[in-house]
């Protein structure tokens, strides 16, 4: 691999063992994956779930991160301040808190920005089109590649951390123009683009992900006016049921002004047709039965935008959670402060809900309280992971947000 002078210095240990280790990982990985060089990255987004020993090894002797680095949502639903109100067990908290403290000490020393969200672009980490970046989180990767046309690979957590600390990433994969083109076209058939709902879009994403697998997709036939949260609803399930990295939306996303451009004027490898029947059948996978009692509602996967928080607060206004019911809402701290200023969080909290910056897909170990047997969400991604991670103990149904709220409140 061809290295610059400063990269060589980092690799040789001149700047300490942490940078040496990180460079070693980047070089070895790059060579194995056919990258000829490293490139500077304009931002990183890393996952606060490092084994503390590894984080210490990779940051030993390092003064600050090598690029602007934000942190992903607290992995797992565990929130260090709110866990008791969320009904998460003391045993779980006792395990998490000391490790969290060790990590936070290092984050503060190196200047990691404690954003704790899966939507860092909404809270200040806003790369420009064409920027090379290293972001973690299958959704954050997909969103930033698709919605902003900045370029991240689907890096794993260790390469990503090495990239954040050195400010470099191997030049490969989705950094290259030719690997960003659409390969599979998604055509909506008989679906009114102006009457499409939030969970319709989630169902389309869930259906398409399992068929597209790892290929880049181009969705044709959606309306330009779709709100950002609706585009996120479409995209979030794609890396859950499949492992899609890029979802171009014709007329909506920067690399897809037209279908032809998104495909690089080539024929698609496949056309996936989605009709009303496919949407209905996908919704059946996570439907409520008439005899189910809903004990919990989870919203905010991906994290709620301020508009979504407003809509939730409006729906909850004048209501209370029914006895024994729970409501978790995932959103970035920064959004929470705005919701507090505007009075929305008060409405939600007075009704008995909790707004947290943790992960509402509850990855990786799903601390859903023991008294919950059935929960509702508006997110197919959350439904996918929670039902798997709880190994069938918890039934998860997907419904529109207002129906979710009504299922647990009165």
């Amino acid at each position, binding site marked *: 691999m061809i290295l610059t002078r400063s990269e060589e210095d980092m690799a040789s240990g001149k700047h300490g063992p942490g940078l040496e280790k990180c460079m070693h990982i980047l070089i070895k990985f790059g060579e194995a994956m056919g990258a000829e060089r490293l490139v500077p990255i304009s931002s990183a987004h890393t996952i606060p779930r490092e084994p503390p020993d590894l984080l210490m090894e990779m940051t030993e002797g390092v003064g600050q991160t090598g690029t602007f680095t934000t942190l992903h949502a607290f992995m797992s639903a565990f929130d260090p301040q709110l866990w008791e109100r969320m009904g998460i067990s003391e045993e779980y908290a006792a395990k998490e808190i000391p490790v969290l403290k060790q990590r936070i000490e290092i984050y503060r020393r190196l200047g990691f920005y404690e954003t704790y969200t899966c939507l860092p672009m909404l809270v200040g980490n806003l790369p420009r089109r064409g920027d090379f970046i290293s972001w973690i989180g299958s959704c954050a990767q997909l969103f930033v590649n698709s919605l902003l046309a900045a370029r991240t690979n689907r890096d*794993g*957590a260790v*390469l990503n951390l090495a990239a954040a600390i050195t400010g470099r990433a191997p030049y490969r994969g989705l950094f290259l123009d030719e690997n960003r083109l659409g390969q599979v076209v998604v055509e909506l058939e008989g679906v009114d683009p102006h009457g499409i709902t939030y969970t319709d879009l989630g169902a389309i994403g869930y259906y398409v992900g399992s068929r597209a697998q790892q290929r880049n997709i181009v969705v044709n036939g959606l309306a330009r006016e779709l709100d950002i949260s609706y585009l996120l609803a479409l995209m979030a399930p794609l890396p859950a049921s499949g492992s899609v990295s890029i979802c171009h939306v014709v007329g909506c996303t920067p690399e897809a002004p037209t279908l032809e451009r998104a495909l690089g004027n080539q024929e698609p490898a496949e056309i996936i047709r989605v009709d009303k029947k496919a949407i209905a059948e996908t919704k059946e996978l996570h439907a409520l039965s008439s005899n189910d009692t809903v004990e919990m509602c989870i919203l905010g996967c991906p994290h709620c935008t301020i508009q979504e928080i407003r809509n939730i607060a409006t729906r909850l206004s004048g209501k209370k959670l029914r006895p024994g019911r729970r409501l978790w809402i995932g959103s970035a701290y920064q959004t929470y402060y705005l919701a507090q200023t505007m009075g929305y969080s008060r409405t939600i909290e007075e009704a008995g809900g909790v707004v947290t910056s943790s992960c509402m897909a509850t990855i990786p170990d799903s601390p859903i309280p023991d008294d919950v047997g059935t929960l509702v969400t508006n997110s197919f991604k959350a439904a996918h992971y929670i039902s798997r991670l709880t190994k069938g103990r918890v039934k998860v149904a997907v419904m529109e947000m207002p129906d979710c709220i009504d299922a647990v409140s009165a």
Partner: protein
Amino acid sequence: MKIKGRIVNEGNAAGQAVVLDVPFSFIGDFDPNTGKITILNHPMFGESIAGKILVCPSGKGGTIAPFVAYEAMKKGNAPAAILCREADPILCESALAIDVPMLDSFDEDLFQMVKTGQAVSIENGEVSVEEQA
């Protein structure tokens, strides 16, 4: 019997082979606390890969898989080496995180040459497989 592969991460190791016929991830398919394979309804379910030579077609998804591999290493439950047909990014990172030898792109079909339980040693990019007794 010797086969040659491409070195993804160098190093020497020896141990018993554990051969998986499906792509492997340290998250979901593996318990770092026991070193055992946790793929439901798979014949290798419950088999430990701790200190063994893991042989698999490739890796797959799961961005925090390299962290799980590291946790397993700290508990003495990580494999001693990884051999695969084609190194995918996440499995490659996992091997680098725990710094165990990893090889791919062999000159012969790995799955014809290596069976579970055989003694395997890796030295300078060459894999020696002991003839079955």
